[in-house]
C-alpha cells in the first residue's frame, strides 16, 4: 500500500461534497469536499505500489479539464486509469445533484 499526495491548480469549487465508489477489486472510493478556489488537493491511498507517475498523469489530465477546487480522498483497490477518471467525473456529477 502506498499513500500519494498531489496538488493541482483549480478555481471552481463544487456545489457540495460527494462520495462515490467502493474499495473493491478494480475499483476505488472517492470523497470530495469543496475547498476555496486555488487548489485541488488529492490524497491517494492505493493497494498497488509503484504507479506514482501513472497517477500523476491521470490526475493532471482530469484537473486540467475540470479544475475542481476540492479536497479529494481516493481509496483505491487497483482501479485502472479509466475507472479512476470515471469515478472522478461521477463525484463531480454527484455534487451537482
Amino acid at each position, binding site marked *: *500500500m502506498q499513500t500519494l499526495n498531489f496538488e493541482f491548480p483549480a478555481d471552481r469549487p463544487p456545489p457540495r461534497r460527494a*462520495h462515490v465508489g467502493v*474499495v*473493491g477489486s478494480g475499483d476505488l*472510493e472517492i470523497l470530495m469536499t469543496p475547498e476555496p478556489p486555488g487548489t485541488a488537493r488529492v490524497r491517494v*491511498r492505493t493497494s498497488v505500489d509503484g504507479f506514482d507517475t501513472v497517477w500523476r498523469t491521470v490526475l493532471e489530465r482530469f484537473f486540467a479539464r475540470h479544475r475542481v477546487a476540492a479536497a479529494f480522498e481516493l*481509496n483505491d*483497490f487497483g482501479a485502472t486509469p479509466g475507472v479512476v477518471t470515471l469515478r472522478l467525473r461521477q463525484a463531480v456529477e454527484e455534487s451537482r445533484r
Partner: protein
Amino acid sequence: MTSPPPAADGPTDWTAILARTGFIELDARARATALLDDGTARELCGPFDRIESPWLEPQGVVPQSDDGVIVVKGRLDGRPAVVIAIEQAFQGGGIGEVSGVKIAAALSLAARDSRDGTPTVAVLLLETGGVRLQEANLGLATVAEVCSALLELRALQPVIGVIAGTLGCFGGMSIAAGLCSTLIITAEGRLGLDGPQVIESEAGVAEFDASDHTLIWSIDGGAQRTRTGLADVLVLDDVTAMRSAVIEAMERGVPGEHRSRRIGELRARLEAVDPTDPPAPADLAAVWAHAVPREGDRP
C-alpha cells in the same frame, strides 16, 4: 464462486422477471435506501465521518471510509426502521472491529428506542464471508456482540435478515442469520457456516468439492434453504418484491417462537438423518417434513 444457481422448482414467471428492477446489482448503500420509504433514508456514520478500521492501514490494506457497513435510518411503510447493509465488495463483506460494532450498536439503539416507546424494526442485509481475518480476534468478538444485540432487539421488534446475493452469508454472521425473526433469501443467495472453499481446504476435496457448483447450490442455495425451513421467504431478485417481502415480515411482528428457540424441532430433524448416510440434498425437505418433536418434548 458466483455462478448462477440452477433453475428453481416450478414454472418460471417470465412476466415478473422481465418487469423487474434488480436488487442484487445495487451496492449496499443503494440496497438500504431502496428498501425504505421514498425520501426517508438518512445515513448514520457515513463516509464523511471517516470512522475507518484502525487495523488495516498498518497492515498495508487500504481502508474504506465507512468500513463496509452502511447504517440507514428511515421509515418502512411509515414505521421507524433501521437498515444495516454489509458491502460485499469491500474485503469480502468481512466483519472487523468498526463494522461489527456499527451493526451491534445500531441494533442496540433500535432496542433502546423500542423499549422507550418508539418501536423500531431492523433489516440486516447480509452479504459476508464472516470475520475479517485482518482483524481476527476483534472481528470474532464483535460478531458475538452482534448476536447479543440482535437477540436483545428481537425480543421487542422483528429483526429481518435478507440474503440477496451474490456473495451470500457465511462464517460467524451465518449464526446471526440463524437468529433473525424472518430470513428472506433469493435463489441467488447462499447461506452456510463454512463456505465451500474453506471446507475443501480444511477437509479435502472428497468432503466438499468447491468447484462443483451444482453441489454448492443444492446445499447452500436460497431455494434449498427455504424448502428446508432454514430460511422463510424466497423472493425474486426485484426491488419491489424485496421491499414487499420485508414489509410483510415486519407486519407479521415478533414470532411466537423464533427458529433458534425451536430446539425440539432441531433435535427431531437431526434424529431423522443418519449422518453416515445422509439423504441427497433434494430429498432433505421430504425427510424433515416427517421430523416433528416427540410428544412431551420441549418445543
